[in-house]
């Protein structure tokens, strides 16, 4: 995973990209795109996050152990989110005691 070490120029480029992404995310958010709004916002956020992780935090230039540690934490967060939402989303799928219907529940 050893690319060449980052330079001032690398950092400046990433910073500029982050600013562009910031403008983009705010701009897109001014319009209601339905379910796409959240998806786009998250994709942009993840892109920014990946840039910060790989370049600013040197994951791209570091050891594999660091990559595993960083990745594992996000994976575990995903387990928490998926495992919990798996319950919420499937509450009404199977016949059983009627689950509480929420007003305007998730899509």
């Amino acid at each position, binding site marked *: 995973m050893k690319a060449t070490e980052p330079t001032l120029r690398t950092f400046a480029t990433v910073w500029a990209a982050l600013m562009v992404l910031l403008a983009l995310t705010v701009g897109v958010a001014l319009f209601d795109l339905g379910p796409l709004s959240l998806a786009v916002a998250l994709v942009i956020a993840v892109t920014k996050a990946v840039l910060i992780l790989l370049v600013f935090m040197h994951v791209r230039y570091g050891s594999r152990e660091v990559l595993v540690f960083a990745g594992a*934490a996000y994976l575990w967060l995903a387990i*928490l989110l998926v495992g919990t939402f798996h319950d919420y989303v*499937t509450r009404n*799928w199977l016949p059983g005691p009627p689950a509480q219907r929420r007003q305007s529940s998730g899509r």
Partner: protein
Amino acid sequence: MNALPATRREPPEEANYLSAHTLRSWLLTTDHKRIGLLFLFGIIGYFLIGTAAAALVRLDLVTPQGDLLSAEMYNRMFTLHGVVMVWFFLIPSIPSVLGNFVLPLMIGARDVAFPRLNLLSWYLFMIGGGVTLYAILAGGVDTGWTFYTPYSTTYANPQVVTMVAGIFINGFSSILTGLNFIITTHKLRAPGLTWFRLPLFVWTLYATALILVLATPVLAMLLLLVAVERFWGIGVFDPAQGGDPILFQHLFWFYSHPAVYIMILPGMGVVSELVTCFARKRLFGYPFVAGASVAIAVLGFLVWGHHMFVSGQSIYSGFVFSLLSYMVAIPSAIKVFNWTATLYKGSISFETPMLYAIGFIGLFTAGGLTGLMLAATAVDVHVSDTYFVVAHFHYIMVGGMVLAFMGGLHYWWPKITGRMYPDLAGRLAAVVTFIGFNLTFFPQFVMGYLGMPRRYHSYPEEFQFYHILSTAGASILGVGYLLPVVYFLWSLKRGKRAPANPWDARGLEWTVASPPPTHNFHDIPEGIRPPYDYPTPATPPFTSPS
């Protein structure tokens, strides 16, 4: 065995880690061995408190009317018992006491990676415990150790906040220990000591540390949110505002299920050490046992919903969690098979540590199998919140973990203190403990199945017989716990001085003096031998009976 004779005039001990006697040298130590002992003193204190609460509970349950304690007091007692035993005894017991002491020695290091963080971990443990004790003295908490909302956030008394604060602080103790162990294992192994040459105890401590680091922060945030919700009156667990109490349960069990693996994995590691040593045999299926340890840690994160089958959780979700719970039993079973295969055709002797190890294998298996019963949703609907569950987890936590802790303590006692205890007394204590344990908890399986609910202090007459058996067993179990205190203390003054390797065991910790010198090794070991290099191979050649 070259033990020195216990004559009146014994030659002076070499300077070792116990030599400095000032209070300051203990309270400001960064030596992992001393920190291990500091943790030992701490958990003994908390264990006494937790046992006292249990004793009151069991005494109250002797009569069906619940006349010893008021209902309120009874609830506080089982809450106290759960909170103290889980967070201040079981979770730190093997990792922070035995792990701290033995891990660097086992990998040929002079200390853990971050000795000062290690000391901080102990202070956080003691402070957290102090705050929790204050909560108890200031009126106590009656929510159960599980703190379910909205009771804990809305209706229970204000000490809930103090108690969760104590547990929160203690959580950081856990996190620091886990962090330390992971980095230590990655970075401080002696040259040539590859992962697959490590003793199993190191593997299980590593797996435990993974859980400590990944699960505890979620609990920490959850406790913080409970406190915020109490103070503010607004919160995401309050159904009156659109919040969800089940969200609390998801967050709580996301931590607390892996927490039970924190509580058992180190014990499994100890058992691997004991079984190989006292069967004089290499571990059967080493890579599988190592892999199973990590598998338990990972899979253990995927099954938390099995605590919520009857909570209102989605049925579909319930059966996914049920399926995953069956899967997580597989690596545990692999370990049990491998220990058994290690014993097979071994040259077995029954010193005290081995008795505890064998007790562990039997009782853990029983507890684990009842866990599988509980993982079946249909069964769980009937026995959830009954004594069946109580018996299940006590089989694992007491029959498993406490026995493993005792076994490990007896095994490494000579190394830690430089003294031998009388083995006959040890064996007696082990047998008494085993008998007392089974008498206490087996009746609970039966009465749980018959419908006795947990956390109830008054109950129908038909269950009294079982409760009496259980309480009688508890008193015997208490004797089993007390005996080691007596002979261990005795051994400190009158026990034979221990040689470096009293059990003729394998492992780097046995190559240094008993007690070890402050810096562990004069020279960092090189030329590491394979693990468990005992005389009998793991799979001895088949000889047909003649």
